């Protein structure tokens, strides 16, 4: 595959008609297993999370069962300024045929969005030490890395260097 490791140039169209973007908040679940299926499924008829009354690290613990396993998890909001998207290949009709053949593989559009999601552990209680929640630390790092450097930042940095 070309571009392996370097990444490919692609585009995501975020400006799709809002009416066509499905709101999935509270319906996105991250399970501690690999389900080898990709397609529609009657989740609400079978997957019934219930709060169990406990609270750990400020997380309201929920319980659910899947394939006989007890799952315990929590619903967490995405941080301000971030959204979750379900992307799909950009639908035909929006693009000319010539463009399709060139970059059909990497043009995406938003099919659904969400601003919170539930993540589940197999049997263990959710906590702030879960890798899934710790992944959110990246947001602060990314912000610091990408924030434009101001003249004042440079001055204060050189001052602290001198102090060494």
């Amino acid at each position, binding site marked *: 595959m070309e571009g*392996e490791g370097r*990444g490919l140039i692609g585009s995501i169209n975020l400006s799709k008609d809002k009416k066509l973007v499905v709101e999935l908040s509270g319906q996105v679940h991250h399970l501690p297993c690999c389900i*080898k*299926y*990709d397609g529609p499924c*009657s989740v609400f008829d079978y997957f019934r999370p219930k709060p169990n009354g406990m609270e750990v690290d400020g997380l309201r613990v929920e319980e659910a069962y899947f394939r006989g396993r*007890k799952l315990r998890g929590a619903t967490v909001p995405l941080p301000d300024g971030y959204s979750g998207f379900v992307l799909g290949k950009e639908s035909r009709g929006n693009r000319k045929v010539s463009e399709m053949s060139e970059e059909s593989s990497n043009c995406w559009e938003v099919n659904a969005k969400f601003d919170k999601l539930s993540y589940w552990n*197999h049997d263990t209680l959710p906590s702030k030490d879960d890798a899934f929640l710790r992944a959110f630390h990246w947001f602060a*790092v990314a912000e610091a890395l990408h924030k434009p450097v101001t003249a004042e930042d440079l001055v204060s940095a050189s001052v602290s260097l001198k102090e060494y």
Partner: protein
Amino acid sequence: MGSELALSLPKWASNPCIMGIDEAGRGPVLGPMVYGCLYCARSYQNTLSTLEFADSKTLKEQKREELFEDLKVNESIGWAVDIIDPRELSAKMLNKNKINLNEISHDSAIGLITRVLNLGVLLTEVYLDTVGDPEKYRVKLSERFSSIKFIVSKKADSIYPVVSGASIVAKVTRDRALREWELEETAENMQRNFGSGYPGDPQTKAWLENHKHSVFGFPTLVRFSWGTCNSYLKDGVEVLWESDQMDEDGSCSSRGKRQLKLSNVGFTSSKRRSEEIESSGKGRCKFLEARKLEQVTHF
């Protein structure tokens, strides 16, 4: 759960008492497993023998129900039940640290004894049908409750009337619980004709066949930890769990586990997934590795 013990302690309970414990619904592939106990003063033992209690399996359903109603109003008898939800059974047996059915059974019996003792009943002898090796079970119980003499034997439910009585309590409670079971699932065309729940019962077989779901498996009434379930789910969607991966390969390193976890975090296709399981950490820095983050270049 499910306790219907009398609130005020009868006078006879402060005299030496005997108790029988028995189970119902251990074998079925669906519904709760019920542990029941029945206790009375040792001096009441002879009268108890005249009450026609017999091993609940040898009695017709209607007779069992009658006997249960009789013993409920009998002021010389106390009883209690522990109803173990099929969800709890499956969850414990499929937990990361698996708890087997014998252990669950022992815990339930121990729970009942504790409950009755806490009521203030002076238990001196407890009779049980064995679960696993009788002598080991007896030692386990005796170590726990040093003031009680335990009689653990096979077929206790047909030998000791006090255990026969407990078996009626358990069996009637299990049958009622299944009869009145409220299915949690809201899928269309859910039926309640479960049959007995035993894997060989044609009605149970038909119900399982008609209520299987390719992704979810079965409604949570079913005990997923029963081997019988697998034959129904052969054509269903495959689901891989981290805990099972560890089991299959005892030598599986923590790295193998981490890689599988990693593949679960990315919302990637199955093709990409297999690549990820095979790939190394690709020299990502510790911060990213600890948080199972990686850059995704292909969806």
